[in-house]
């Protein structure tokens, strides 16, 4: 060993220092350039062009302007039950509780901060979740790059005012409000995450390990997110379709040999129809994300040509068929035909009355099965469900796409203004939607309901104010 070797090492270090990094790492760590805003609305705009959240009767079917899904059959009207009184019968949900565990961008983890939200289900509450502003979620910044999807890990999603009714043999009576542990406290409500599955057909498929469809919920970023830390603020807006999209369902179960039903609230089954006796409501929660760089967006006014219309804009590269379905969810389910086999009754446990009841139901189930499965082969079964999955966009990892830009004309106006569009080329459509019409509640759009605007000509949106049409 001699000193020359030491000097050589020193020389190497000095030479290396000429090639030092360019990024101020420690300053970056204390800077947050990506803002994630979470909204519960179908509409994009933050200050106007909204449909109001109408109060609806919980006992009336959705088709008659109520909140009740057609799968609610055992207790179709809780006000007629023996002993029914305020608090002991169905009531409107008032609070949505979300426990968010993690957020990823194209698989890259950007947040593992636990974020617990309690959101009043009301327009009047002026909560950012529903007033279009959006709740800002705590995240870290991703690295520079392009991201096309958000994985949104929802640990629990609770809607309150879930009621439990128990059978008396001759009818049902109110038992209690359903309870759930939420944020380490006992709360009233039902965690619908556990029902967010599609087990009837997922169990036969490779992706069955991902059956809980909100852990994660995979949300497409329409137009993608190109993150560059040179930009001071990049906004990623995530919208979950919850406003005007909640229905009442019925969950059937046995407890200590007693047949019970729980009336709870969840996202509308407009896409994947939920039928009586079914407990799975997975892939009916729809979401979309879009991104923009603050200060680099365009605005445009669009005439919809009539009142009570939604105006939507989609990137020119997308096809409108990705944003709707060809027929209603109910009719798509019907087309599954005799491959849509009856569900077996659940075993109630060793209680003699309940078991006798179970065997009766089981005999009926066997008869129904034999009737339906006559002539059914595995190939026919598989083909029928494949067709169904294709029709409800089941083969897309995102499911049904929601338009990235949506605005409502109002019931009196006939135009909308989009204030925050990422520069690019878009196609504009409108859909007739009158919120006062009962049949529109809890529904999105069929492909045929999208009517193209501007004579089908795409519009090139530039930063700043654009000429409307």
């Amino acid at each position: 060993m001699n000193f020359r070797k030491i000097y050589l090492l020193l020389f190497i270090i000095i030479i290396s220092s000429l090639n030092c990094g360019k990024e101020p790492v420690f300053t970056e760590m204390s800077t947050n350039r990506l803002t994630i805003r979470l909204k519960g609305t179908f509409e994009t705009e933050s200050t106007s062009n909204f449909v109001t959240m109408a109060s609806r009767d919980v006992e009336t079917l959705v088709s008659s302007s109520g909140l009740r899904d057609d799968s609610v059959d055992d207790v179709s009207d809780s006000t007629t039950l023996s002993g029914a009184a305020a608090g002991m019968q169905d009531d409107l949900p008032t609070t949505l509780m979300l426990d968010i565990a993690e957020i990823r961008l194209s698989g890259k983890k950007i947040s593992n901060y636990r974020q617990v939200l309690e959101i009043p289900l009301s327009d009047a509450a002026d909560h950012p979740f529903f007033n279009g502003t959006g709740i800002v979620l705590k995240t870290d910044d991703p690295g520079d790059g392009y991201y096309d999807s958000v994985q949104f890990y929802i640990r629990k999603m609770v809607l309150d005012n879930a009621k439990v009714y128990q059978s008396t043999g001759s009818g049902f009576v109110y038992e209690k409000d359903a309870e759930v542990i939420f944020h380490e406290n006992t709360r009233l409500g039902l965690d619908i995450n556990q029902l967010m599955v599609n087990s009837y057909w997922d169990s036969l498929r490779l992706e069955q390990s991902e059956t809980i469809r909100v852990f994660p919920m995979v949300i497409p970023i329409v137009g993608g997110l190109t993150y560059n830390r040179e930009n001071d603020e990049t906004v990623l807006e995530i919208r979950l379709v919850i406003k005007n999209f909640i229905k009442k369902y019925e969950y059937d179960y046995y407890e200590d040999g007693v047949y019970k039903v729980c009336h709870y609230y969840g996202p509308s089954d407009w896409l994947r129809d939920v039928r009586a006796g079914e407990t799975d409501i997975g892939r009916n929660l729809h979401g979309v994300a879009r991104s923009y760089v603050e200060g680099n967006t365009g605005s445009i006014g669009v005439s919809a040509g009539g009142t009570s219309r939604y105006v939507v804009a989609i990137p020119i590269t997308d096809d409108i068929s990705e944003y709707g379905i060809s027929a209603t969810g109910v009719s798509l389910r019907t087309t599954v035909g005799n491959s849509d086999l009856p569900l077996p009754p659940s075993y109630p446990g060793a209680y003699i009355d309940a078991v006798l009841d179970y065997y009766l139901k089981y005999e009926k189930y066997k008869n129904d099965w034999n009737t339906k499965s006559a002539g059914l082969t595995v190939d026919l079964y598989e083909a029928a469900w494949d067709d169904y999955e294709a029709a409800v966009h089941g083969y897309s990892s995102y499911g049904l796409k929601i338009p990235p830009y949506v605005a409502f004309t109002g019931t009196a106006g006939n135009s909308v203004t989009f204030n925050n569009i990422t520069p690019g080329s878009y196609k504009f459509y409108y859909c007739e939607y009158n919120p006062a019409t009962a049949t529109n509640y809890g529904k999105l759009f069929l492909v045929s309901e999208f009517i193209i605007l501007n004579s089908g000509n795409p519009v090139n949106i530039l930063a700043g104010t654009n000429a409307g049409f």
Partner: protein
Amino acid sequence: MRKHFTVLCVFLLCLSLCSELSAASSRKKYFSKPQIGLWYGPITPLFETNEHLDPNLGGGGFFRYNLPYAPLKIGLESSYQYYDSEGVAEMRLIPVYTNLLWLIPIDLPIRFQLKAGAGLCKVRVEPDDINQWDPMFMAGTEISFPAGKIANIALRLDYLCVYEEHLKGATQNGHFFNAGISLYFNLNL
């Protein structure tokens, strides 16, 4: 402050008195040999860096060689330091630096050394995907005693500054404190 200074003086005086009674005088020359060693111990971010990263355990290695002026040695050190955070951010540091060590000329069975140096630090940050070398400086102290003819044990306390304020847009540097127990060996080079 004055009280602390008095206590420190009394402590050093006691140590110097004890040295006359110890049998370690035959090993006093261990500082004069080249040495190689390892260290392991708690590492923690300091100041504003502490707001974003959590403390952890880290370790490293070093080599020291004598200089013509006996109380001084030159060292080459490196370590691996991983810092997690409350969120998803995580940082990996590999400082590589040279330093100058000065043996405080007090004749004690334990040796006090002061050290200062500079070099480069490999910084890797996730999820930002930043992977680069930054200049760095260090200062520290080491309290050591011989554990036999060839081995020594030391407590080392180092402050590391990863310097970034020269970069465009930078307002912060990285500050870290390393404490560690080290074991190192005298070499007959």
